[in-house]
């Protein structure tokens, strides 16, 4: 192993050059630094620094002036504006009146979360694990409160729930179909490689192209299915007139693009299950269903969990499809958080734009790290 002589990182002074050390030797002696420095510097400047800088935007009212930007510190006003819910700041949706069902569901989730926290506390989790679980539980309660206040009480959604809709519904749908397709392609069928390539292609097509292609294909008046729409009496209808239709419209496009990702990963996982294991089960008399349930599925679950995590991370960033297919409409029904932030930026409200982006960051981090710690890590631990 190329191990450093000691644990102290050598300084970067070319002092050795004075004592007759050649440039290549000097370079080689410090190679450990040169290997990693470019990546670290790039990430620090273009990811970490902007992330911090974003806080300033989120906490300020920003104005353009001839000398550049002028910042006025306003504490959490931008965030508060998002949470108080009106038509301009539509992060949460409108929480006007809670229905009985909403109350019931909220209380049930609160009780379940507390019970879960209590149990993991008694099971002796580490303090960092407890804090993480409290954050996860708090977010879950918050989400269900929002969900009960809007969806279950008949009030309009905000961009928060819309984003989660894309993530949860999109990911589950894509995972089920993608895995089913992968299973199909792992069977002894002719032309396996052809289908593998064909089913993979949509993932590689620009999201922009996918958006326009679906907008065109599903167009009610000029699209290829126009006779069908006319037949079922949808002549003057449009996808962007109905909130639910518009959301499913976008999930359809998103699924067309992303099912291939699940498909290709799960196919690789399926083909990686040792042939011996399947054969042993066949000799032992297991039926195909039993073999899948008892032998194959448990061995691909760790991969499945990781694949879902990756898909979720990317799903939170969804912006191209709603922007193109419905422009966020009708109203704000299909607006994702990234799109929300983008619209605010176009309206020159940089403070609110940064605030929404930051909320998205917090949401993504909490959901993904909860999923990672509570699901993925457990599954990986079970794997050999």
């Amino acid at each position: 192993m190329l191990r450093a002589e000691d644990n102290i990182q050598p300084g970067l002074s070319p002092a050795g050059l004075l004592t007759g050390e050649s440039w290549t030797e000097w370079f080689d002696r410090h190679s450990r630094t040169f290997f990693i420095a470019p990546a670290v510097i790039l990430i620090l400047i273009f990811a970490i620094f902007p992330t911090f800088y974003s806080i300033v935007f989120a906490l300020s009212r920003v104005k353009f002036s001839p000398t550049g930007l002028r910042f006025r510190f306003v504490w959490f006003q931008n965030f508060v504006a998002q949470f108080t819910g009106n038509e301009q700041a539509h992060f949460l949706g409108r929480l006007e009146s809670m229905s009985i069902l909403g109350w019931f569901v909220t209380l049930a989730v609160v009780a379940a979360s507390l019970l879960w926290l209590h149990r993991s506390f008694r099971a002796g989790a580490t303090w960092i694990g407890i804090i993480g679980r409290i954050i996860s539980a708090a977010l879950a309660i918050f989400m269900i409160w929002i969900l009960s206040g809007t969806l279950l009480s008949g009030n309009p959604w905000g961009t928060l729930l819309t984003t989660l809709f894309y993530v949860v519904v999109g990911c589950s749908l894509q995972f089920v179909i993608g895995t089913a397709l992968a299973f199909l392609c792992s069977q002894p069928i002719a032309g396996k490689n052809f289908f593998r390539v064909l089913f993979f292609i949509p993932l590689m097509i620009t999201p922009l192209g996918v958006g326009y292609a679906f907008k065109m294909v599903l167009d009610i008046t000029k699209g290829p299915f126009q006779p069908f729409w006319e037949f079922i009496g949808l002549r003057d209808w449009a996808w962007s007139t109905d909130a639910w239709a518009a959301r499913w419209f976008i999930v359809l496009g998103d699924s067309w693009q992303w099912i291939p990702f699940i498909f290709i990963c799960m196919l690789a996982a399926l083909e990686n299950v040792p042939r011996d294991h399947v054969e042993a089960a066949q000799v032992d008399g297991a039926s195909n269903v039993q073999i899948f349930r008892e032998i194959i599925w448990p061995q691909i679950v760790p991969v499945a969990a990781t694949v879902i995590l990756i898909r979720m991370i990317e799903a939170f960033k969804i912006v191209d499809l709603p922007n193109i297919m419905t422009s966020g409409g009708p109203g704000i029904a299909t607006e994702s958080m990234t799109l929300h932030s983008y619209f605010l930026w176009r309206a020159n409200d940089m403070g609110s734009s940064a605030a929404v982006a930051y909320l998205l960051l917090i949401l993504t981090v909490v959901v993904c790290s909860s999923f990672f710690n509570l699901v993925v890590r457990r599954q990986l631990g079970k794997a050999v």
Partner: protein
Amino acid sequence: MTSVNRKVPVRFDKVRKYFGSVRVLEEFTLNIAPGEFLVLLGASGSGKTTALRILSGLETATGGRVLIGDRDVTNILPKYRDISMVFQSYALYPHKTVAQNIGFPLKVRKINQAEMDAAIRDAAAQVQLDHLLERYPRELSGGQRQRVALARAIIRRPSVFLMDEPLSNLDAKLRGHMRAELKHMQQTLGITTMYVTHDQIEAMTLAHRVAILETGVLQQLATPAEIYNNPANLFVAQFIGSPPMNVVHGSLEGRRFQANGTSVETPVAGQIGKAILGVRPEDCTVVAPTKGVLKGTIYTTELIGDHTLVTVETGQDKLTVKAPKDFNGKHGDAIEVALATGRLFIFDAATGQRVR
């Protein structure tokens, strides 16, 4: 558990298996007696594993028939054949405990839990695994994993056991131990067993009868002693025995074998221009010059422990001779080799067949 004695014969009837243009098995006919322990021995690529997999149903024969008992199973799924198999890799399910692994064949048949538990404990006891039932395969040693695989095979009391090089992943010491265990188990259960290996010691020690396979063709089917003492052809003669049988190239004229200017009296007579004389190392002795039949020089000597292996260079051939452990010849010494006349084999160099 009361052993239900259902000894079943197995029959391969002119089985052929081609993978595209590659001929893996050619007119393979083999009868396994009820309750017999048959070892299929061959080098890698000889078609032995394919033969086993055809019997298991994991491969389908291109032609011919396979019978278990009086049933033609050629086109029947593995699960209807009432067989169980031990894989070279053991194929233990990593996400199941030892107990769940052993009980899997019963679980898929929806046997009730109590009966299954009893059967698992019984099978585990038979391979001394009772104390490890709750472990996962990754927590076991190689030998323990091997025994889990065995227990999973015996729990169902199948008509036929199939074993695909089950001992090849174990170290030498454990292999010897497991060999004895296996033999004992097969004898107590009395289940017809087909065992595939490339290791001649396993074949010789375990088998009632050994079938030697080379390039998809059955070379000889006989008891271990018969195979050693009476090989059917040059391939079998050289494949069995360690160190392998010595060969001397020459010609057969009447009752005499001519090579390197010397001639040896042979047990068989014939006229073959290119013949091969075979003799096992233990049937040769190193003697002083003029006292033996084959002249040569010492190429190298290796002390094994209870004996010394002396390699002698004679003409174009090298002979290995088993000498006493105090043999003290040196590299380059001119010596002669004496042969036990009654234990010589003559083969036709062109066909490899034994001249009888």
